[in-house]
């Protein structure tokens, strides 16, 4: 494997005239992961195909894959804007196709949130182009470093960050996420929680570590840490109070996004430590993607087959559907951060980074968040294990394609556990350039 990321200049033109895509180890890893998830989701959707399944689902799914893959490789601000738009429109379309009578209003709200994020992002890009004349990440880094750092740079960075934060649902701007992820089809919720919010965060991470690295000031770090911590606490507390399983999973996504944003404020001087931070960030994305997809698919399976949506209606399913409840248990283990799972390794990495940096408040917040989410998930598992099955949740409603769905859910839960042992693999990929 080569040691440096290599660049693809589209059309043979160099920046500032043309656009560069940068092929890095991190981008390859995330692209492979996202394609794998899309493959599994396609099989799951195919096994669910019935007369009422919307046919427009498939082109939108593939276009969503285009948008997400592009965001992992782009190194130009306006190119990133267009990929964000493709991703946003596809996600909105997928939400709008979901059954349910409130899905149009929800899709409109989601589209409004996406438009607000894109507008702020484009405003920041306009100001940056006006001031520096370049849109490429690395050239912009050089331009910001060399020139006297002016307030306009801070304002542009603030607007770009606001746009990305709105799109990836960092608290306090997270209000749209539970409604949208809770009311979409389980397949679509899995994709939204697992991949779509992550590509915005990945773009933020790349910008934070390369282009805007000279603009990172303590107030900004402080605000980001506060928002991340708020996301963790609000997400887990609301997940405790949620009365529908899908809503609980959506609030858990809010909390996990809070954890992800806590990877940013760690300042490191050494090259090796920043590579490790990036590896931990990627592992967290992969582990959470696998765990959240397992959770949403299992919850969707239970809803479509047995029509149970609330935690209390899970009573006795441990005997009836042991594989599915086992899959929920494994994803819970990863989301809480218990060994052996990907979530455990990633959270341990996060905790050790914060401990070595000395930020004990964030350390405590992460621990408190993990304990609270443990309470939330144990509550559900107790319902599933203990009580005898209630009679009205026993009949199966849909009977075709169930074997494929079970296989996919079990495969995902096994991978959630296996990803905990993948730290060396991530570190190996990141030798090929992090950004």
């Amino acid at each position, binding site marked *: 494997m080569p040691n440096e990321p290599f660049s693809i200049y589209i059309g043979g033109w160099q920046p500032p005239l043309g656009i560069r895509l940068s092929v890095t180890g991190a981008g390859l890893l995330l692209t492979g992961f996202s394609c794998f998830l899309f493959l599994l989701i396609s099989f799951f959707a195919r096994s669910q195909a019935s007369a009422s399944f919307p046919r427009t689902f498939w082109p939108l799914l593939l276009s969503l894959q285009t948008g997400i893959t592009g965001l992992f490789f782009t190194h130009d601000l306006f190119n990133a804007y267009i990929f964000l738009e493709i991703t946003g429109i596809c996600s909105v379309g997928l939400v709008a196709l979901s059954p349910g009578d409130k899905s149009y209003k929800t899709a409109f709200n989601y589209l409004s949130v996406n438009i607000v994020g894109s507008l702020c992002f484009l*405003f920041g890009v306009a100001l940056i182009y006006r001031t520096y004349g370049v849109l490429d990440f690395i050239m912009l880094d050089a331009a910001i470093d060399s020139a006297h750092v002016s307030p306009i740079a801070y304002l542009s960075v603030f607007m770009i960050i606001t746009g990305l934060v709105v799109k990836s649902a960092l608290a306090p701007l997270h209000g749209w996420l539970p409604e949208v992820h809770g009311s979409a089809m389980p397949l679509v919720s899995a994709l939204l929680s697992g991949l779509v919010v992550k590509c915005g965060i990945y773009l933020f991470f790349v910008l934070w570590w390369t282009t805007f690295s000279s603009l990172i000031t303590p107030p900004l770090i402080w605000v980001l840490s506060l928002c991340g911590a708020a996301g963790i606490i609000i997400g887990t507390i609301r997940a405790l109070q949620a009365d529908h399983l899908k809503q609980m999973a959506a609030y858990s996504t809010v909390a996990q996004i809070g954890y992800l944003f806590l990877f940013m404020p760690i300042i490191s001087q050494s090259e090796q430590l920043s590579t490790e931070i990036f590896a931990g960030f990627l592992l967290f994305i992969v582990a959470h993607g696998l765990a959240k997809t397992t959770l949403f698919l299992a919850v969707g399976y239970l809803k479509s087959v047995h029509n149970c949506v609330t935690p209390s209606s899970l009573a006795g399913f441990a005997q009836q559907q042991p594989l599915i409840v086992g899959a929920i248990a494994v994803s819970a283990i990863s989301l809480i951060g218990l060994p052996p799972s990907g979530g455990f390794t990633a959270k341990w990495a996060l905790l050790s980074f914060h401990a070595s940096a000395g930020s004990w408040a964030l350390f405590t917040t992460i621990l408190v968040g993990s304990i609270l989410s443990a309470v939330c998930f144990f509550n559900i598992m107790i319902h599933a294990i203990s009580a005898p099955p209630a009679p009205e949740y026993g009949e199966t409603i849909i009977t075709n394609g169930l074997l494929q769905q079970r296989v996919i859910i079990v495969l995902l839960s096994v991978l959630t556990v296996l990803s905990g042992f993948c730290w060396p693999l991530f570190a190996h990929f990141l030798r090929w350039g992090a950004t």
Partner: protein
Amino acid sequence: MSEQSLYTVLGIGLFWLGLYRALTVNALLIKIISFNVAGAGTFMILIASAYHDTLPPDAIPHAIVLTGIVVSVATSALAILLALRSQSSSTTKTSANDHHR
């Protein structure tokens, strides 16, 4: 104040005006129009930054604005359709899923 600064000021004002109105109204059509106004403000800033005294105008912001206009048309079309659908009754929902291209 030079013309370029005037257009930049107007662009910034339009952007924040559109964003404020979009975030506070409840009527869906006014929200969509406000998003378009905010986009127009951003485009005006870009166009104003393309002016040079001696050289011909810089073409990259023009290309960015053209692309941005098309993207905002697409987004507005989808938003209008969703707004219309969410206003009409829920009985049209089942017939909508059967409409293919």
